[in-house]
């Protein structure tokens, strides 16, 4: 009876990336089971992907058909570089990463880190965006083959595959590292600052690039393209053209550059993966022992909402406020709003402007107008409000507490809007200040703030409906960028729908800015504020009714399936 359960010396079969790929395919397939609408959304996603892929293909292949080697270099280096940059940044800002295979699930399996990383990497390659990018960059192969013959084509094909690997490795490494950073409470503020700095740098960088494009002739640009071709951003995409131009020696060098980069990224990823698997960062509640002050109620209400009455509405607002800061997923969204909110308007308003003076070139000359300003503000307001499109999904099954307490829908939505606004309204104010300051037109502050408030308000109203009717569950991982496999497309569609709807509803502000001239400078702020507030209240009123009727259904849609 006391015979030990020994591990027999059986041959352990090695685990290859193939297993991960098959697992991912199986999970994706099971997600579709019995869910017709998911299949439909997937098909739509594939079609959209193909559409963009076809566009990219033409862009990359065109220089080959036109027999223009110089444009080919530029398309390869700049286009490819933008691709890599996009894979690096877009998951952080908009889309999140597909975490169909959550690394934490593998924590107990006897897998070496190397096996795990290569396996997850291989699984990450199985996705619609990767497929679409592959189709698009196939244009480079065509281009190289037309310019340099079959050998160049084959080398370009190799480069393109390596380039796609680079894209995926970059996106994985960056999101994973960033997630780890946000999870650790100690460095989260640092992360916010870091992002803000990056965003602050993007604006001026944009100006420099634009100025360069404007002044530089094509030869200079080709020169820049060739330099980019020697960085990891452009290296894999340009080797086919190097062969075509008779520089075969460059091929192995560039491949080594790319391979080293991919290796470094995977190494980086595997480092942060480990902490994602064991959740090391969150297990250190260092300040846990600080004695709480005051009664339970006093502890619940943060200082920023000290004005709220101690009733149901106040409790909802206070809890939401705490959550926007304490929940890594929500905090990541707030940071995104702050970053994009600053840098998009700066880009739009200064980007279109000509620059007086050659030295610093910060003085806008003419082009920015109240209309352009309103449009860019519209975008920021809409983007801020779209964060609430899945506000109940953030809560997950915890929303059950509100269902059990029979919280009226209107109260619930009003409170959620209020709590979010506690964070967003000051941000919008700062955005308006900065943008009118940067433009050197302080009198435009009202126009900016008015457009922001109006679009934010109508956005809140529309997202009130979307959050009640189109909620979906988020996986219960600590990675704020993780999404359930298969729901990604649904999410993007809903987000798009909500953004288009909100933007359309706020268009009157732009029209007014165009038609009313100077009088609008003073009217915009009160009118925009009233319009936004009215829309938000109306939205909460109407959507609250819907919420009252389908609270249990909402709860089951936001509860993650296990």
């Amino acid at each position: 009876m006391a015979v030990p359960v020994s591990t027999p010396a059986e041959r352990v079969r090695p685990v290859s990336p193939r297993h991960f790929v098959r697992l991912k395919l199986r999970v994706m397939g099971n997600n579709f089971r019995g869910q017709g609408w998911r299949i439909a959304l997937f098909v739509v996603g594939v079609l959209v992907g193909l559409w963009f892929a076809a566009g990219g293909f033409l862009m990359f292949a065109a220089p080959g058909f036109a027999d223009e080697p110089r444009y080919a270099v530029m398309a390869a280096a700049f286009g490819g570089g933008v691709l890599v940059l996009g894979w690096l940044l877009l998951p952080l800002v908009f889309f999140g990463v597909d975490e169909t295979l959550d690394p934490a699930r593998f924590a107990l399996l006897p897998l070496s880190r190397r096996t795990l990383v290569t396996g997850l990497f291989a699984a990450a390659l199985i996705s619609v965006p990767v497929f679409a990018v592959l189709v698009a960059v196939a244009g480079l192969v065509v281009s190289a083959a037309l310019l340099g013959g079959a050998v160049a084509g084959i080398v370009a094909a190799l480069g393109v595959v390596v380039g796609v690997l680079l894209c995926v490795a970059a996106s994985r490494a960056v999101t994973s590292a960033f997630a780890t950073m946000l999870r650790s409470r100690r460095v989260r503020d640092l992360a916010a600052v870091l992002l803000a700095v990056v965003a602050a740098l993007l604006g001026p960088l944009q100006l420099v690039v634009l100025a360069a494009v404007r002044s530089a002739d094509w030869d200079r640009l080709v020169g820049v393209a060739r330099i980019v071709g020697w960085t990891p951003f452009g290296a894999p995409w340009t080797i086919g053209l190097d062969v075509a131009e008779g520089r075969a020696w460059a091929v192995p060098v560039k491949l080594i550059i790319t391979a080293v980069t991919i290796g470094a990224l995977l190494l980086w990823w595997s480092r942060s993966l480990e902490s994602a698997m064991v959740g090391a960062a969150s297990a250190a509640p260092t300040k846990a022992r600080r004695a709480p002050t005051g009664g339970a109620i006093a502890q619940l209400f943060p200082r920023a909402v000290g004005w709220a009455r101690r009733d149901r509405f106040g409790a909802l607002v206070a809890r939401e406020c705490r959550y926007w800061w304490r929940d890594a997923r929500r905090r990541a969204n707030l940071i995104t709003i702050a970053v994009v909110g600053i840098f998009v308007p700066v880009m739009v308003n200064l980007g279109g402007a000509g620059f007086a003076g050659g030295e610093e070139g910060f003085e806008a000359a003419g082009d920015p107008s109240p209309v352009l300003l309103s449009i860019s503000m519209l975008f920021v307001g809409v983007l801020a409000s779209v964060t609430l499109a899945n506000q109940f999904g953030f809560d997950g099954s915890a929303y059950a507490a509100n269902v059990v307490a029979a919280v009226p829908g209107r109260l619930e939505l009003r409170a959620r809007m209020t709590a979010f606004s506690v964070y967003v309204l000051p941000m919008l104010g700062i955005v308006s200040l900065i943008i009118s300051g940067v433009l050197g037109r302080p009198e435009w502050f009202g126009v900016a703030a008015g457009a922001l408030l109006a679009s934010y308000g109508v956005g809140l109203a529309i997202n009130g409906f979307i959050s009640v009717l189109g909620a979906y569950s988020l996986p219960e991982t600590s990675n704020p960028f993780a999404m359930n496999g298969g729901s990604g497309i649904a999410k993007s569609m809903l987000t798009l729908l909500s953004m288009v709807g909100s933007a359309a509803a706020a268009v009157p502000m732009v029209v007014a800015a165009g038609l009313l001239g100077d009088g609008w400078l003073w009217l915009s702020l009160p009118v925009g504020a009233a319009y936004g507030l009215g829309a938000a209240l109306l939205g909460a009123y109407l959507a609250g009714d819907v919420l009252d009727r389908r609270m249990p259904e909402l709860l089951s849609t936001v509860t993650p399936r296990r």
Partner: protein
Amino acid sequence: MTGEHPALALRGLAKQFDGKVAVAGVDLAVPAGSFYGLLGPNGAGKTTTLSMAVGLLRPDHGHAWVLGHDVWGDPVEAKRLLGVMPDGVRLFDRLTGAELLAYHGLLRGMDPAVVDQRAAELLDVLALTDAGRTLVVDYSAGMKKKIGLACALLHGPRLLVLDEPFEAVDPVSAALIRDILHRYVVGGGTVVFSSHVMEVVERLCSHVAILADGTIKRVGTLAEVRGERSLEDVFVEVVGGRTATGEELAWLSR
């Protein structure tokens, strides 16, 4: 009112998930003042039944009443009388224990002063005061159960519905929870809870119902259901489990 109506009445509750029957028509009458155990193996439909009974999951068919108030027709009044601790549902766990209690109290429309006083008392009795500013997400499993119970008790409900209150709870916490529930029933409250731990049910309950495959197989007072045998024997017989022959899994004892 309490005299005329059972504390919880279910009639014909049924639910399917994707064509798979989870609960196939459950009728139940829980007398006021009883300590009612809902027994069943994993996957029997206990959680589904209780979720439908408290208004968390809309039933395909059937009705539920809390002290005569229709849970699905008049949810506000029914939910006012009801305290719930669901299982497999997260709390708003990025709050501290005290914050969570304050939230639940205010959400139930209670007076802030009363909330403060009761929250302090509950945290003290449940030995959670030491947790201080630790977030509920960092609590141990037993502490989470205790704070969940505190949230359900805070507004002084007449009926307490608990899903697996003793799951993953250490003996000390379990004894504490048992004690509190016992006092609650003596004080005139009604408790309905699900479990598959026979000892706890035998020790606490005045009434039991055995649920398997989505239907009630046995129901009545503990004595009626148990008869002369142990509750475990009855349960295994009703559910129809298999007994090990010793032949299978031979490789385990190498």
